[in-house]
């Protein structure tokens, strides 16, 4: 056995162009058998095209798709043994829910009784066993979505492709499914590629997250890696709610080393890193990393409360610093914190992110520490 055979899915330099536009620009990635990979990115990033290339309904201009170690070049979609659920459900409008689900195995499963048992058991699992004889137009959006999932799951495919399956369902259902799906997928034990534009979904479902924009992979990592060390400003902005605080900064140097000044505090960067002085950078601090502190705290930032938005489990406060910068601060709800007037905030210097302004790329920082200006 080669190492490759352990991979449920392997993509090697997939390129796809449409009328001169490069939709997939040499995508390579691999997914361990039985694990879930989330493709995350804005619309137009090429996620859906990539998923279809894996399914075999779109042929790549170059590159190779391997499923369970088998090269899929020239293999028709019906022979790839994958299951797929579509964002718009793509149910067959002229067939009942039952037939929709059965269609995925009717070719392989010749025994009528086993086919029936398979359809009913997956329908039960997804709680649509009551509506199996309904036509798709008679189903609610949630039922449609579950039927589409059932159709993808029923054949126990070794590779399951889910194209933003929660996109078109209401918030409540999305919340429920976000909890239900990981268990369901784990139970199936299949390799999963899951496309989404919702960072919470990505964090909840992915063993690995691949962030794509414009046909390129921006970052690959575990949910924690993506959140804690976003590779670009865009990724930092996309993962996290409320959105990360960003400030244009220009590092300076004094006798203690390079520093970034923020209100009346200086954040010193360890000497080891390259010279950033006078370059244009963007500093990011997540709203969750900020906290209120007492005025006596020397390196704290003075600000005024502009608006307070309680959001059930958390409270988001909009602050205006003395320097005129807006800051968002997010804390667990129920803490007795200032509603208005002047406040001081401080933060853990190790929680800051620094990005190059032009390229948006992350600058790795080590041992940052804050000091008040004398």
């Amino acid at each position, binding site marked *: 056995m080669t190492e490759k055979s352990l991979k449920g899915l392997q993509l090697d330099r997939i390129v796809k162009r449409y009328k001169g536009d490069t939709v997939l620009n040499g995508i390579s990635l691999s997914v361990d058998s039985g694990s879930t990979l989330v493709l995350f990115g804005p619309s137009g990033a090429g996620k859906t095209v990539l998923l279809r290339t894996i399914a075999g309904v779109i042929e790549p201009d170059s590159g190779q798709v391997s499923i369970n170690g088998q*090269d899929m070049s*020239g293999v*028709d979609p019906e022979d790839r043994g994958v299951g797929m659920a579509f964002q718009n459900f793509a149910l067959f409008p002229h067939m009942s829910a039952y037939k929709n689900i059965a269609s995925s195995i009717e070719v392989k499963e010749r025994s009528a009784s086993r086919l029936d048992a398979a359809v009913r058991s997956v329908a039960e699992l997804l709680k649509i066993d009551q509506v199996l004889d309904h036509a798709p137009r008679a189903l609610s959006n949630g039922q449609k979505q579950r039927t589409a999932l059932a159709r993808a799951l029923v054949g126990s495919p070794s590779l399951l492709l889910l194209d933003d399956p929660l996109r078109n369902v209401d918030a409540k259902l999305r919340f429920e499914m976000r909890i239900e799906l990981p268990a369901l997928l784990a139970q199936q034990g299949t390799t999963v590629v899951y496309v989404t534009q919702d960072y919470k979904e990505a964090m909840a479902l992915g063993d690995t997250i691949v962030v794509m924009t414009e046909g390129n992979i921006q970052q690959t990592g575990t949910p924690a890696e993506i959140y804690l060390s976003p590779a670009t400003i865009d990724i930092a902005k996309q993962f996290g709610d409320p959105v990360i605080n960003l400030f244009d900064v220009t590092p300076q140097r004094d006798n203690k080393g390079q520093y970034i000044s923020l209100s009346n505090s200086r954040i010193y960067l360890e000497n080891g890193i390259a010279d950033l002085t006078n370059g244009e950078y963007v500093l990011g601090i997540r709203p969750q990393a900020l906290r209120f502190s007492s005025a006596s705290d020397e390196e704290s930032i003075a600000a005024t409360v502009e608006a307070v938005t309680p959001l059930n489990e958390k409270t988001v406060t909009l602050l205006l610093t003395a320097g005129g910068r807006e800051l968002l601060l997010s804390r667990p709800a129920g803490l007795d914190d200032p509603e208005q007037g002047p406040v001081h905030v401080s933060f853990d210097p190790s929680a800051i992110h620094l990005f190059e302004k032009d390229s948006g790329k992350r600058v790795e920082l080590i041992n940052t520490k804050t000091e008040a200006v004398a």
Partner: protein
Amino acid sequence: MTVENDLPGVRRRRIKVGRRVLPYILSLPALLVCIGILVPFVTAAIYSLQRYRLSQPWARKFNWGENYLNFLSDPDFWNTLKVSLVYAGTTVTLELMLGLGIALLLQRRTRFNNFVSIMLLMPLMTAPVLAALMWKLMTNSGFGILSYLVSSVGIQDFRWASSPDTALLTVVLVDIWVYTPFIMILLLAGLRSLPSQPFEAAALDGVPRTFVFWKITLPMLMPYILTATLFRLLDSIQQFDIIYAMTQGGPGDTLTVFQVEAYLNFFQSTNIGRSAALMMILWAITFVLSNIFIKNWLKLRERAN
């Protein structure tokens, strides 16, 4: 979920050839029909370059452009060209004005208007030959209701299609009866698909309605008008059924439009070379028109889908 997993890719490559070629196989019949039509087309082009009379098969030979050159000094040809253009120009202009008028009358989606618009489609669904026969019966000098009506308002001796003076008018009338609904129904669909905001805004601002018509309705409707007009022009310049059924091109050569003239040349004078040359010229005219048409038509089609 008791289905055993097929190993993915096991059945591969078998269909690979079929998959690439299948679209071509499916379009093959259409291609054959194309070829089957292109062959006689090329044949016609060859005939047009020959001296070819069925009555004198021994004298058949290539005379290259002679059939075409002869047209220059042939009053019959110029008559054909003139009559065809006049016929097409008159019918399409009148049908466009009438069709637009009726479409505007029926613009609102009421049950009555929808009923009327379906009713008006009936002439269009009548075979043009049969429509011509209907009008022939109505204009019969002995008992025709129209002849009676005309004479009862004091016009004596109005002989409709039998007189060279009124034959064109008569066939144009039949053409209008059959084809105005075509323009009407297309423009009606166009009018009803126009966005309502500009009209509501104009109404709120108290813009005069003639101004609204010329500056908003007409420009927005233009793609539909162009498509309908070109469509009709293409058919009208080739009109055969109505004229042939009504007068067979007569009286004399009053109505010898292209296709009628070519038909008579072929079957009566058996002058195949001249007949084919006439058709080639008509084809050249329609080819230019249809290229303009298809461009407009594609734009509309994109909008519809």
